[in-house]
């Protein structure tokens, strides 16, 4: 059984149908990359996986949870799914360490001392061990994003979702974040990334899903990035430098 599977997912915002029947799947330990032009529905599809948006039709299954089931226990889903946002969304009034410790203490009822160790460990993995007592505004964009990744990792999810996490960063800071994500991929984390970083996708992805106007237009391994079959994907890649 796939770790993540979307089957014929539809979603509209008012009169606009953003997802018109999206279908793809990802196995455990695989890295999936969602690419496409703005408006293709890729971010929406990602957000639907973690129930940030509810779908109108179809099925979504993640780590054994039926996301489209209205009776789903959201907390149980969120224990298994971690998500990192484009705008980091760190809590500004808490230090980096407190940001990371918050969920383990409040949701998993971990003790303070143990949570502090978890936080130190997570910060080590992303290369920010010395920033545990800093506030988010004291960090660069790249550091904030890595802290956000650490915050999600501390909950030990089965699946990680990355929503254009480097789009707001300049090239230098982008690199440090991508290195962390690559390390994560190598360690066997199942993940889906919505990204414009084609080179990174070529290096790290197991599966590439190209979305166009609310549908999966083409999907396959990284070979479709070098040898796109459909004209839309060819067009999309040709604009991408």
């Amino acid at each position, binding site marked *: 059984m796939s770790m993540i599977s979307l089957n014929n997912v539809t979603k509209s915002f008012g009169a606009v149908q953003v997802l018109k029947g999206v279908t793809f799947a990802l196995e455990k330990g695989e890295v999936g990359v969602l690419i496409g032009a703005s408006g293709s529905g890729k971010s929406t599809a990602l957000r639907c996986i973690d129930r940030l948006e509810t779908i109108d039709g179809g099925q979504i299954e993640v780590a054994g949870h039926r996301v489209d089931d209205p009776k789903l226990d959201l907390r149980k889903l969120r224990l298994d799914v971690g998500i990192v946002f484009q705008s980091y969304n760190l809590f500004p*009034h808490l230090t980096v360490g407190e940001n990371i410790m*918050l969920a383990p203490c409040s949701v998993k009822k971990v003790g303070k001392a143990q949570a502090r160790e978890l936080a130190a460990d997570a910060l080590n993995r992303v290369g920010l061990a010395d920033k545990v007592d800093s506030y988010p505004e*004291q960090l660069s964009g790249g550091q904030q994003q890595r802290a956000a990744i650490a915050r999600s990792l501390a909950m030990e999810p089965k699946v990680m979702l990355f929503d254009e996490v480097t789009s707001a960063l300049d090239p230098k800071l982008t690199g440090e974040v991508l290195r962390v994500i690559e390390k994560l991929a190598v360690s066997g984390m199942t993940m889906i990334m919505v990204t414009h970083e084609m080179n990174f996708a070529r290096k790290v992805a197991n599966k590439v899903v190209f979305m166009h106007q609310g549908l999966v237009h083409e999907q396959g391994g990284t070979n479709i990035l070098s040898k796109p079959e459909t004209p839309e994907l060819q067009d999309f890649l040709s604009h991408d430098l």
Partner: protein
Amino acid sequence: MTFDFSAVLTSWQMLADGAALTAKLASITTITGFLIGTLFAIARRSGGRVLRGCASAYIETVRNTPFLVQIFVIYFGLSSLGFSFSAITVAVIALTFNVGAYTAEIMRAGFDSIQRGQWEAGECLGLSPVQLYWHVGLRPAMERVYPALTSQFILLMLASSVTSQISAEELTAAGNFIQSETYRPFETYIIVALIYLALSIVMRGAFWGLGMALFPRRRRLGTPL
């Protein structure tokens, strides 16, 4: 026209007692008013249709009727229901009732000022709605609207003067008594006004100190949120 302040100042003990009660009323109702206000703000934002309607009705009623009339309605309402509370208890209830509505609007603006991404990030970490409001919403919201909250609670302290009308023996009531004994209304009320002014200054200082304790990030970094 001669002014004789000494006649008033010999009753300094009464003024001090009145001021102490005013301070006590202000302190208690700041806390109770903040609690009620925050709960109603949450109700107005995240409650079901009935809860939201009740919250709006409460807030609009308080904001569109005079405090004096609210005190009388509560005072006579409670006694007609058979309760015989002390004047101070009724004063606390009425002041809380009043400031709770204004605080609810201030806190609602505070919660609204938090970006959606913050709530989403907390939700995706598995926090429950209550935990979201407590850990993610409360302190940033308070920090954003702290000046408005401070002003509101100082106004509350000034509004406590109206409770003299239900015989609460706070500062204005003390002034009323003293001027009726000394026949020096001008001097009496000038001194009373100056004491209120002093209380406002003390309150402002207390809120500043409280802010430093509540908002460690601001204390350490000095930047706005």
